[in-house]
């Protein structure tokens, strides 16, 4: 009897085990992000409040974070009031490793914000952007008005990597998700590509001035979008050989932020100077403004929650963070009112 019961239970378990992948597949296909939604963390870098003056008793700025399920209460981490332009959170370490790109240099924590160190020296100043290689977290890049700087030893030593770049004011850089030797950066005279981790750069087919940001499609390494100051948004589908201007539906010309929905890269968001938020659902071919509830149309940062595609964050210049819970259809303030929010990163932990 016992044996029979055991056998029956085993058969039942085996049947369920074989069904689990099928059930998971059905859930993922039918209810992509929403049903799998979990609590994640949103990090932002606040550059300043409207009345920032060097030396003054400025309101607290720097890196703030909160759980996405929280309302508008943020916690601070890292140094305060040192002009934080950007931040990079290392996802595999679940936020133990964070880098801040700031006026004083590149600041790094490896214990989730308990302790911080300025890893760069006096030469690396006014750091605008930072990226950490997902696979090798000792490989970090940062960009400044004086070019790209790289460390391969976690910040112990830095080298300047501007060989080939004509205008070294570099506002952003990215590491190809499938090949960390390949980098792209946005400069004052176009988008540049490196095939050797930044030892040398060549300009891609995009040579317009004032490229503010370059982002890579999360599943197609050859598709990149670039936002520019005055020249709109450009897209390439061949790793930068040639670029096309995205025109359909875009009524503005200055874009500081472009973000993919990591769960569905056909969906993108873009924003910039007095643009509000634009959304594309066809991979950037056409765009539509989605501004309901946005009280400030100067957008500097955008991010989609990887655990819930309907949850989208927009960082404004001087009005803090806005959040949408319906994929951008409507927005509400998520706090940090009065702040210039230069970077947003939403992490699945």
């Amino acid at each position: 009897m016992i044996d029979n019961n055991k056998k029956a239970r085993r058969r039942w378990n085996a049947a369920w085990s074989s069904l689990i992948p099928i059930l998971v597949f059905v859930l993922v296909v039918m209810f992509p992000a929403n049903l799998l939604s979990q609590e994640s963390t949103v990090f932002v870098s606040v550059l300043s409040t409207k009345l920032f003056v060097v030396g003054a008793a400025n309101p607290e700025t720097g890196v703030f974070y909160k759980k996405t399920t929280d309302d508008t209460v943020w916690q601070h981490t890292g140094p305060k009031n040192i002009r934080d332009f950007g931040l990079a959170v290392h996802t595999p370490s679940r936020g133990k490793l964070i880098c801040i790109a700031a006026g004083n240099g590149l600041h790094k924590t490896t214990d989730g914000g308990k302790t911080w160190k300025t890893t760069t020296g006096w030469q690396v100043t006014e750091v605008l952007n930072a990226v950490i290689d997902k696979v090798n977290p000792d490989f970090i890049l940062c960009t400044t008005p004086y070019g790209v700087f790289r460390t391969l030893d976690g910040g112990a030593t830095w080298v300047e990597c501007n060989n080939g770049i004509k205008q070294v004011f570099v506002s952003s850089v990215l590491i190809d998700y499938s090949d960390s030797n390949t980098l792209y950066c946005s400069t004052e005279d176009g988008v540049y590509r490196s095939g050797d981790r930044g030892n040398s750069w060549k300009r891609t087919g995009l040579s317009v001035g004032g490229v503010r940001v370059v982002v890579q499609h999360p599943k197609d390494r050859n598709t990149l979008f670039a936002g520019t100051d005055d020249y709109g948004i450009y897209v390439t589908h061949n790793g930068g050989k040639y670029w096309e201007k995205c025109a359909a539906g875009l009524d503005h010309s200055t874009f500081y932020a472009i973000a993919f929905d990591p769960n569905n890269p056909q969906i993108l968001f873009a924003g910039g100077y007095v643009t509000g938020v634009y959304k594309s659902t066809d991979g950037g071919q056409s765009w539509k403004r989605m501004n309901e509830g946005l009280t400030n149309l100067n957008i500097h940062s955008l991010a989609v929650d990887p655990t819930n595609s309907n949850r989208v964050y927009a960082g404004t210049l001087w009005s803090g963070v806005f959040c949408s819970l319906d994929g951008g259809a409507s927005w509400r303030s998520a706090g940090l009112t009065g702040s210039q929010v230069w970077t947003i990163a939403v992490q699945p932990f």
Partner: protein
Amino acid sequence: MNVKKFFPILILLALQSANAQVVSRETYLKEFEKRAAFITSIYDTVQAAGYYQAAVRYAHGKDIAIADKMLIELLRDPRGDMFWMIPAIGTYLQGKDKMSPEARATMRNAWKTYAPYRGDTENHWCMYHAALFLAAEQWPNLPGSEWYNGKSSEENLREAKEYLIQWMKITTTIGQGEFDSPDYFPEYAMPMILLSQFSKDPEMRTRGTMMTDYIFADFAVEHLEGQYIGGYSRIYQPAVYKPLLSGASAFAYLFFGTGEPTNSGWIVLPALSNYRLPEIIYSIALDRSKTYIHQERKRVRNVIRFGTEKNPPVYKYSYITKNYGIGSLQGGILQPIQQHTWGVRYTYGRPYTTIFGLHPYWSALEVGMFFPEEVKTLIADVVASKGTYNNPDKWTGGSPYERTFQHKNTLIVLYDVAPGTTTEHIDGFFPRNLEERIVEPSGWIACKAGDVYVGWYPLQEYEWKEESDASINTLNDIGRRQLERVKETGNWRLRSYKPQNGYVIEVRSKEEIGSFAQFRSALNAHTPTATLQPGSVSVQYSTLGGEKMEFAFPEKRMLNGSTINLSKTKLFDGPFINAEVGSEKMTMTYKNKKLVLDFKTVKITE
């Protein structure tokens, strides 16, 4: 701080300092001590907490308990970034052997817990690294966990020293970036004086002394009765039209015995210091027995975009007499926001001792050249602290549509303003206390300021506007609320709305030309010829001295038929101070005295 009770003394000292003469070393040192004692005496009775009030008490060994209490209170919530670092470490160095263990520990803790912003410009970096260097020397062998930036004492010391040495090198090879700033002079003098007095590292102590000498010599050679002569990288309002209000004038009072004592806290730590100006420098600052020409090369602050060169050259020309000085930069955008391209300064008629002109320009392009934030919103960022930046009536700022050509005491300024520029007018400042401001039938405007005469020949039609008080509520450089005086009642503004424009300036003293009537007569016999078309702006002019100047906008300058090549300008070139570009060496000469500052060998040679 309320200094009303000191007004009678201030006035006496001001009168005493107005006609300072070169004196013996012994007398100079005695007078210096008196001035230093006066300055510090103001601070050692003030009860409100302040770093300078505490520093004076520590230095004088007086009311130490009060000083400790002040310090602990102030360090409860440190604010001010590098503007905190310098007074904080300066106060600590004055009092570390006298303060209580609690005060000492509180100071140490502040360098662990408060992370100051390093800033984004030369004076910020200079103050930040000098203060960090001195602090790291005071607290050696500490791990990164004991410092606000996570770096160890040795790492901080090494990095700060490296920055300071490279700053000294670039300054002594291609010139200072924030050069000759009447308002930012203290931001360089104070950290260098602290290094000179307190650095434990003999090399950095010597370098501190040498750099203090260097920037004082740079000031001294363009100094007249407490005023900085010529074009400047940065100046605020109202110091631009009331020159003795600038921070440099407070230093001129203490170190040269000229200018006026002020309640500027910047002068307190120098007044407490053991740094003494070499005799040759104050002699250069004070001896105006002979008229001279002095030329300099400086560099533009780091151009981070919209340019092809990181630090293009600045060319400065000054003509200095005992009654007046006229000086100019070549024009164009050489510094953001607060540039002063040219001016006449004279000894008559305090406080309004100046005549100057400008194209009141502002643009996102200008600030985008120098600041990394988004170009579209930068003007709003700048206006938060520099409230006059986008004001069409402002009295400071450079313009890409302005160029100058100076020869001795004659100056030509030309403008070719592009249509659609933020302002399409140019302005001239004429102070209310001029004895005469006569418009001659020839077109010359003849002005009399005591024994100094200024002629201004406008090349286009213009209007006179009498100024009325106007202020902007803004934040000053250390974040305090202030009323920034845009203009003051009774001064006169010459405004011309023609985009192709310019003027000729002639300055003479009574000694040089005789009576005011003779000056007017000479002016009327010399009128310029101009071409004023878009893209073709030029002038030909024979000076009162009989020399022929031809100037075509933007860069064609000819004197008596020969082309002027500004690129040959030396780092310093004049009867008192000389330095070659790239040399890292300054040579001062005065009568039979000589002083050489050699930054390559870190040696001072007399």
